[in-house]
């Protein structure tokens, strides 16, 4: 597809689906619904360093959602459409939402969230329904940022995991390849597509090699850290590594794989709604017991929880770290407490 046809592609998708693209809202990039290419601010692959500030998980696991409404008479009403039930991937006809401009790390993050919300023994109908109804068009990264370390956690700038279509910069053209039936469905009927030539494919290969070489310099000893963390719960290093942590939730709320939540009722005299919203292990309330006892009384225990959950407990439970190396926590930490440095400390034990 020629680069100038990108707007037409956006319109092609918007015509048949609810389309989400990362839009800059006052300096906070987040996936927002658009009707046509007019509102997408020249979104294109040349924009490759702009990892959306807010993670893709919001489209599937929003910061707050009403699970159901109830009234004093005993009535219960589910507000979210959970009709698309578990069972197979997205079918071309079943796709009603498309996220365009997804980064490979974010696409991969959903496969990690699937382990939690779409597991064999428990399926979250709200999450699963949105997952089944949504296809991802991913932009490969030709210029990874300084905080990126996707290749250290099993991903990569051209990683296809979780994507339905991947789109890459091929010099004069964008090169797109479908990875699923849903992806093929999205490209179907878009007239400006043509078979990629050897020249474009070569440009993509070169971009990929350059991006991967770039990330090799950002290598983090994650595997080594993971192997050490199992026995590191009581290590004195925690006293040191957490020290500058302010205890805010910028890292966990912007993390594409953090998934802890709280459920509560917002009730009036006559009824109310049951609400689920994000929670963060960095907050003192997170594990505060009704008795007043808090098993994680200080920032040290809370910080340890975040690292251990991602790189030890999650690995033990699911065989992968709960991290895709997007670097959002690194970029957005007010005190530059860099998770990569923390992992280096434990890898060196």
């Amino acid at each position, binding site marked *: 597809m020629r680069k100038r046809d990108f707007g037409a592609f956006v319109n092609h998708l918007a015509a048949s689906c609810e389309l989400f693209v990362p839009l800059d809202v006052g300096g906070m990039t987040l996936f927002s619904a658009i009707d046509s290419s007019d509102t997408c601010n020249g979104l294109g692959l040349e924009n490759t360093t702009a990892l959306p500030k807010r993670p893709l998980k919001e489209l599937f696991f929003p*910061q*707050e959602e009403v699970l159901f409404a109830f009234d004093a008479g005993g009535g219960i009403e589910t507000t979210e459409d959970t009709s698309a039930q578990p069972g197979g991937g997205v079918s071309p006809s079943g796709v009603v939402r498309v996220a365009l401009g997804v980064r490979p790390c974010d696409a991969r993050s959903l496969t990690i969230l699937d382990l939690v919300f779409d597991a064999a023994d428990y399926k979250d109908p709200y999450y699963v329904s949105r997952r089944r109804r949504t296809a991802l068009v991913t932009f490969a990264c030709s210029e990874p*940022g300084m*905080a990126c370390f996707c290749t250290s956690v099993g991903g990569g700038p051209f990683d296809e995991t979780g994507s339905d279509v991947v789109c890459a910069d091929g010099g004069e053209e964008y090169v797109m390849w479908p990875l699923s039936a849903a992806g093929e469905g999205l490209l179907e009927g878009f007239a400006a597509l043509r078979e990629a030539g050897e020249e474009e494919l070569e440009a993509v290969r070169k971009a990929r090699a350059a991006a991967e070489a770039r990330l090799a310099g950002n290598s983090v000893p994650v595997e080594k850290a993971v192997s050490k963390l199992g026995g590191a719960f009581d290590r004195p290093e925690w006293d040191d590594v957490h020290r500058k942590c302010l*205890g805010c939730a910028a890292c966990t709320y912007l993390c594409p794989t953090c998934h802890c939540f709280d459920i509560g009722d917002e009730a009036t005299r006559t009824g109310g709604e049951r609400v689920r919203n994000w929670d963060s292990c960095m907050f003192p309330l997170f594990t505060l017991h009704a008795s007043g006892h808090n098993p994680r009384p200080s920032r040290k225990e809370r910080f340890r929880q975040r690292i251990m959950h991602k790189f030890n407990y999650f690995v033990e439970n699911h065989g992968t770290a709960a991290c895709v190396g997007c670097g959002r926590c690194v970029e957005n930490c007010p005190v530059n407490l*860099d998770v990569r440095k923390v992992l280096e400390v434990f890898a060196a034990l």
Partner: protein
Amino acid sequence: MLARESLRPTSQVAEDLREIARGLLETGDVDVFIGYEEGSLPLRTTPAFVTRADDVSRLVWGHACENNLAVYLPKFEGKVGVVLKGCDARTLVNLIVEKQVRRDRVKIVGVPCGGVIDRRKLAARLAAAAGGGRTARAASETEDGVILARGDGFEATVPVEEVLSPSCTTCTHPVPVVYDFLAGDERWARQVCPKEQAYDDVDAFMGRGADERFTHFSKEIERCIECFACRQACPLCYCPECFVDRETPRWVGRWRDLSDRMVFHLGRALHTAGRCVDCGACRRACPAGIDLRLLTRRMERDALEFFGYESGADLEAVPLLATYRRDDPDDFIL
């Protein structure tokens, strides 16, 4: 050894800081020295907790030293040395006045401040200079206050003055009002903003209609993700339990409703009335770049104008909201 005059500000300050820290740690006057060290991204620094005299070489100084290190002091046990800029020192004065920090437990190492970089402004400038989505791979600052950045196939120079944190451009106390040691030279501090100009933006804002002002704050607060980085970065937000964390009763709903977020932000702002010194730490910590300084500075100006009270200027001061005067005309009360 180089004569003092022949060295330029940032490196001399860093050298001074290391020497002072070494002295304090070697004599046992402090258990920990809190300063800044090189961060993990271009032009980022990160707080450093130095406990051994041999490690003082980690300490750095420059316009990227954006954090207000006074935030670490209220819960600190033991004797501590800390690097403070002009505004940071004023927040410490407030912490001492409010009896959250004992003066005799802290060795204040003041730095005449040249202002700190606003990361967002700098990123926008560099993105424009680089073009094509290229990213800056390395950046440094010269002793003359110029940022040099480079990435693949581009180089950019940006004067620090053009990407300063907004709170620095209206700074009235770049030199700490209180210190035990001073690193560097007072002459290297930023020019003081004349007091009569310091609130020009607040006046201009007050000239707008109420609807317009409400829209302004709504738009800022709409971006809030409730990560509470602003609160956590603020040295004056030391409450053992924040009102938004109260469960019984709940003050703030579970929604991400704008009104709930407003309650948090406006409540927090009011809790800092007569205390906030506009160090700008909240704004810099916010991942969404939310700026409520028009509100906090309006209160700062009111304290000054109505009560002649300048927050954080005087160790002997009685906090503004803890005073009572019989001759107060109270003419604003019905």
